[in-house]
């Protein structure tokens, strides 16, 4: 269905990624945000606090990220589309509630504007070092969805996608920005509300006597209800059965945890979003995401100018990891280069999937974006290693 | 339904005990204002003694026992409330009686 116009700031704007993300959330129908200030994400909630009173909804600055991350879950059970916003140290505090959101299947968007870490690290400078944390940081086995915008425009556009994915799959969706994307100021075009598609929560149509809180549909997603509608739901973070009642035994655990995992992994093909350029006949493919992809594009251009056939594959949806797409490169390309602002995180996933192909990481401990020349050097090294330099097409 | 045949009523009320769910905590025995409850010499399947009305003539059906019980195993009722409930049920049952013409609704 179409977005509600009161939340859509139609027009051409010059704004930073944090502000664009806020506008994206409003356009998507987000009406409850609980947050806590943390650089470089604070501007997202500052804008939301200023905007929501005239749009209609709620913002509350909670006392810490533990409170924000669970207040949004309460907000979702009250019927609202919800979001919280943080950076690395706050994300670490939210870990327990990520697990709670997963096991109780609450649609929510968690924005992480990544900064240098670990610990207090570099509050005002970029990194991309939380990528593994969102997938593995909470205890137990679980799957989540994560998107990586690379511009303020994408902070708007992909935020709508993030909310749509959250409502479709009833899980936390991470919006993996970084300090540069968050603070860079660029043109952001916001279309009219009737050109924005939003996904509404799949409310149950069953009467309370027949409704089972965690009985999945054919897509493995259960219909949702909200408090106050007479369903008298019971929602618990304990392992539970399809009624939502605690079921503390291995059989129930297997049923629940596998379904939650399958819900994402078996539907991953519906979530794939890799933006490719020139990958069909490339010898070397540069896989990147977020702000690094813009630097990588410059490196790819330089490599092509030097006569190499280089493609670029930009991960918009980073989790679930696009195994099939990346595996497809193994049969076509000769090497993969993965630049990221961390000491090697998503490159591990690439290596997991394409074990037969040389994969080169271009790491960066954090604090700035790569120099394109550094990525170019690795592309050239890869080319040389697989025997491409000097026009020699075959492997040496 | 209460079948009063053979059971004489003493006191102003009585208690109902679900013996199998009682956990023998003795709150009801301790706090009964008429001190009319005691543990049975019997015990339930879980091994707990459960309360019985040791002094039925003293029970007024105040439901203090029912207000304390942590397991919702016991509650008390006044006989007049039991009778009123019974009368209500009989009235409802006969009101739903057959539609023989001439019978008043």
């Amino acid at each position, binding site marked *: 269905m179409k977005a509600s116009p009161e939340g859509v700031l139609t027009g051409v704007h010059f704004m930073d990624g944090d502000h664009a993300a806020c506008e994206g959330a409003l356009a998507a129908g987000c009406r409850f945000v609980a947050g806590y200030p943390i650089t470089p994400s604070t501007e997202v909630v500052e804008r939301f606090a200023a905007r929501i009173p005239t749009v209609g909804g709620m913002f*509350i600055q909670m006392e810490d990220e*533990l409170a924000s991350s669970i207040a949004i879950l309460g907000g979702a059970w009250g019927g609202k589309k919800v979001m919280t916003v943080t950076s690395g140290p706050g994300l670490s505090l939210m870990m327990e509630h990520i697990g709670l959101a997963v096991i109780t299947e609450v649609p929510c968007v968690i924005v992480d504007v990544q900064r240098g870490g670990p610990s207090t690290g570099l509050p005002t400078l970029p990194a991309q070092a939380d990528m593994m944390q969102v997938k593995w940081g909470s205890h137990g086995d679980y799957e989540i969805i994560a998107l990586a915008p690379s511009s303020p425009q994408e902070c708007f556009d992909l935020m709508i996608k993030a909310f749509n994915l959250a409502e479709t799959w009833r899980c936390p969706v991470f919006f993996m920005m970084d300090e540069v994307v968050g603070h860079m100021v660029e043109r952001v075009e916001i279309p009219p509300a009737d050109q924005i598609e939003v996904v509404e929560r799949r409310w149950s149509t069953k009467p309370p006597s027949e409704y089972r809180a965690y009985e999945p549909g054919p897509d493995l997603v259960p219909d949702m209800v*909200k*408090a106050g509608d007479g369903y008298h739901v019971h929602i618990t973070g304990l392992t539970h059965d399809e009624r939502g009642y605690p079921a503390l035994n291995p059989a129930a655990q297997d049923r629940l945890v596998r379904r939650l995992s399958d819900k994402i992994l078996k539907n991953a093909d519906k979530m794939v979003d890799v933006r490719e350029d020139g990958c069909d006949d490339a010898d070397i493919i540069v896989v990147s995401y977020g702000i690094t992809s813009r630097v990588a594009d410059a490196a790819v251009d330089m490599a092509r100018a030097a006569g190499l056939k280089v493609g670029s594959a930009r991960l918009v949806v980073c989790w679930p990891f696009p195994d099939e797409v990346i595996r497809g490169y193994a049969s076509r390309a000769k090497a993969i280069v993965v630049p990221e602002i961390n000491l090697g995180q998503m490159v591990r996933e690439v290596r997991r999937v394409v074990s037969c192909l040389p994969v080169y990481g271009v790491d960066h401990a954090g604090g700035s974006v790569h120099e394109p020349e550094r990525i170019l050097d690795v592309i050239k090294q890869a080319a040389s290693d697989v025997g491409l330099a000097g026009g020699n097409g075959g492997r040496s | 339904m209460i079948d009063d045949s053979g059971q004489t009523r003493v006191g102003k009320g009585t208690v109902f005990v679900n013996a199998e769910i009682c956990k023998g905590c003795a709150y009801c025995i301790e*706090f009964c204002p008429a001190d009319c409850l005691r543990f049975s010499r019997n015990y339930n399947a879980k091994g707990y003694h459960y309360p019985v009305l040791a002094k039925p003539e003293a029970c007024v059906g105040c439901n203090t026992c029912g207000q304390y019980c*942590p397991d919702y195993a016991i509650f008390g009722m006044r006989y007049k409330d039991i009778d009123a409930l019974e009368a209500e049920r009989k009235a409802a049952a006969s009101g739903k009686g057959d539609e023989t013409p001439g019978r008043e609704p």
Partner: protein
Amino acid sequence: MNVKDIMVSEASGGAEETRQAPIENPVLKYMRRDRMPHIWCPGCGIGTAVNCFTRALDSSGLDMDKVAIVSGIGCTGRVAGYMDLDSFHTTHGRAIPFATGLHLSNPDLKVIVFSGDGDLFAIGGNHFLHAARRNMDMLVICINNYTYGMTGGQVAPTTPLKSTQSTMPFGNFEEPMNLPFIADAAGATYVARWTVFHVRQVVRAIKEGFEHKGFSFIEIMSPCPTLYLRRNKLGDGVDQVRWFKEHSVLKNGADTKDVALRAQDPISVGKFVERDAPTWLDSRNAQLASVLGARFVTTGGSDGHN
């Protein structure tokens, strides 16, 4: 408790007929019958506190579809799971912020937090302080059994001095918290303490908490027979409740500074604080309306489309 002292004598035969109840136990109307019996120990006061809660619900006139209960983790945290209401069993210490989100996204709900002393005041202390400070419109019922029961009886912020607990095996030397004082100091606008002996007063306090606009806090002292009482050789649950009866002193309107619990001293019970103050939502709406005038859109209904 000596069971034999309170058992029928051999001589009084005939007192043991079983009667068929004309109705089910009235408490069960509010419980998830398919999850009974509950897990609480024999003589645990949580069951009695829940009993009082159901009787408060019964005479409150509230729409049971609009009452939501939120618990944390622990023995008291299991309360939500047994209530036939919209019920939420959340994470340890975080029932209050969850309840805040639920309340603010649908202010038509009557939101009750029902949790334990460790959950609300140790790990959850910060959240308690801020919700009280904000006068967030919710009722918080705290069962204080002096311990962390579910995990085996560890010291809690409310454990009396010198008591033995599993993580204070040589006797507790930490000063316990005075919960009503903290609630009052933080800004709670309704503060009461009762014990599970005070079944009628607890019902009345809970009903007052339902009606009170703002942050209401009720501390209900309760025995933990299996862990706290057993380790400290204080008898059974009924012995502790009798102790509550014999040692409680009614002190309505007392200065909360003076109601700290000391192991041998009388327990001050009563309604200590009841005052009117704007709730968080009232304050927010008033402020934004005064600044934004007609442009302010008050938070609306609860459908996911808004």
